[in-house]
């Protein structure tokens, strides 16, 4: 099945790009997590739960929120035919390191930290925010161009009669956020940007 990329949003090195256009740039001295909060404020998003999220979830939440702005998927109308398929290399290691400190000499494990030691929580946050009841899977791979991941997304479209999918890379580890998420659908015009391995690799650059 031919799929096309409708929109894409990238968060990298304290900057945010929508369809390749720079829409946000934080000063380089800012830490990545402070810059995520600044990005949140710059988009005038009203969602206090954002501040409780770990950094991986903040990264994915923002990338997807900005991606979905001005689309029919934005908001709390229940959606059953949208899939979310994300990939990264560090899983939840950034928060794993935070949690580890809470079970050392000063033993005081916290459930609100522990829950984020699962990378798929970011998809839970996105699903709650926009009421996505459809399929979602968190994949991990040391490579961005994991071919099986793209094979999976294609087949999931065929099997599930999905209307849309939110697909891409969402990573955060040791003060580096790196996300590229795409909104994809079945292609109906030749002119649209095709969802193909090579297109994706070009977008990552």
């Amino acid at each position: 099945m031919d799929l096309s990329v409708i929109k894409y949003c990238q968060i990298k090195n304290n900057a945010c790009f929508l369809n390749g256009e720079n829409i946000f740039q934080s000063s380089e001295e800012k830490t990545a997590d402070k810059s995520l909060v600044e990005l949140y404020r710059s988009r005038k998003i009203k969602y206090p739960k954002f501040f409780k999220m770990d950094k991986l979830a903040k990264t994915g939440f923002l990338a997807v929120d900005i991606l979905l702005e001005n689309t029919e998927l934005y908001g709390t109308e229940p959606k059953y035919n949208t899939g979310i398929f994300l990939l990264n290399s560090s899983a939840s290691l950034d928060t794993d390191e935070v949690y580890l400190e809470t079970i050392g000499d000063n033993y005081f494990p916290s459930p609100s930290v522990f829950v984020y030691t699962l990378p798929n929580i970011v998809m839970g946050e996105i699903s709650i925010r926009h009421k996505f009841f459809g399929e979602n899977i968190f994949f991990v791979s040391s490579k961005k161009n994991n071919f099986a991941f793209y094979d999976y997304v294609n087949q999931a479209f065929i099997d599930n009669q999905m209307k849309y999918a939110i697909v891409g890379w969402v990573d955060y580890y040791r003060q580096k956020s790196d996300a590229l998420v795409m909104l994809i659908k079945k292609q109906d015009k030749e002119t649209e940007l095709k969802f193909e391995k090579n297109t994706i690799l070009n977008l990552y650059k």
Partner: protein
Amino acid sequence: MFIYLKSNNIISPLGFSTEENFTSVKSGKTGVKYYASDTLGVSENFCASIIDNELLDSKFSLISEKKLPKFEKMAILSVFNATKNTSVKLSDKKTLFILSTTKGNIEYLKENKSNSDNSEVFLGYSAKIIAEFFGNTNEPLVISNACISGLTAAITAKRLLKTGNYDNIVVVGADVVTKFVVSGFQSFKALSEQTCKPFDAQRSGLNIGEAAATAIFSAVKTEKELAPGTIILENEAITNDANHISGPSRTGAGLFLGLDKILKNGDNEISFINAHGTATPYNDEMEAIAFTGAGLENVPTNSFKAYFGHTLGAAGILELIMSAVSLQNNLLIKSLGYEKNGVSKPLNIITKTQEKTLNSCIKTVSGFGGCNAVGLLKKIPD
């Protein structure tokens, strides 16, 4: 196209082969034991199902001299045992490895001080060690989707086989019992200090378990090509509750959607349900509501959690294999730990292991992040 279970293995405290595990379960044995808090350095005593390290080492040393962490040893040994009597070429370009795990090598995690190196804790690193052990050079895929990882990995295998780009997919699910995980579940007050009691009135939480389980899936074009007794993954669904990140939906909405999707397509004769059944108050209640909503309240239902504990990333695949073997043996397995109904919508919980002609079953899992997965297994008739 039909996706079938070609070969499998389970490694747990109940055995190092699927047969050993199934025999133990048939006789009502459990791998769950009591541990004092200082065993792991956590704050409270706990019950868990833990593989004996010396036994694992001695079994592993028969296949390799490599020094590897417990996680990789379990996973490699499980894949090795699963392929002993098969023609599956693990090194083939059209064989793909999928690793299903929540925390992998997390016990080796070091604190983030002066840029300590945690590269061996990356899940992709572990997946490569496992695939490369068998000479497979494809980039492996890891699925880390909380407690639904294992079933999600089986569903992923099905989808990938349907593309025609792969001949065999090796799904290996594994997780180890660590201070990291036990302390976390204790902080949620989710662990029981006794062997867990799924769906029972006295249930007080779950037990963590460690296991590695391997399922090798392959595809055929027509059902006729499959021998009687072969198990196929007939239908599947993955859904999200879109409700809460650390608790299941009170209404069972996400799980219901998944069940509804499966029951809508095809015939509805379900021989039994193998539930997630973790024995936490909320999970079992949510499942009872969803099963009843889907009209499944009279279908014989069990949970394997009191035999193996909650084996996290291995659970979906381990329990899928146990369900498949139940189908093949025409044996309904007793839901260990259950005495008296403890959910608001009573289910037909299996209280005695018994013979019965079985044709198909539903496997469900649910997890943190609001995720649910449902699989429908069918047996090729005689």
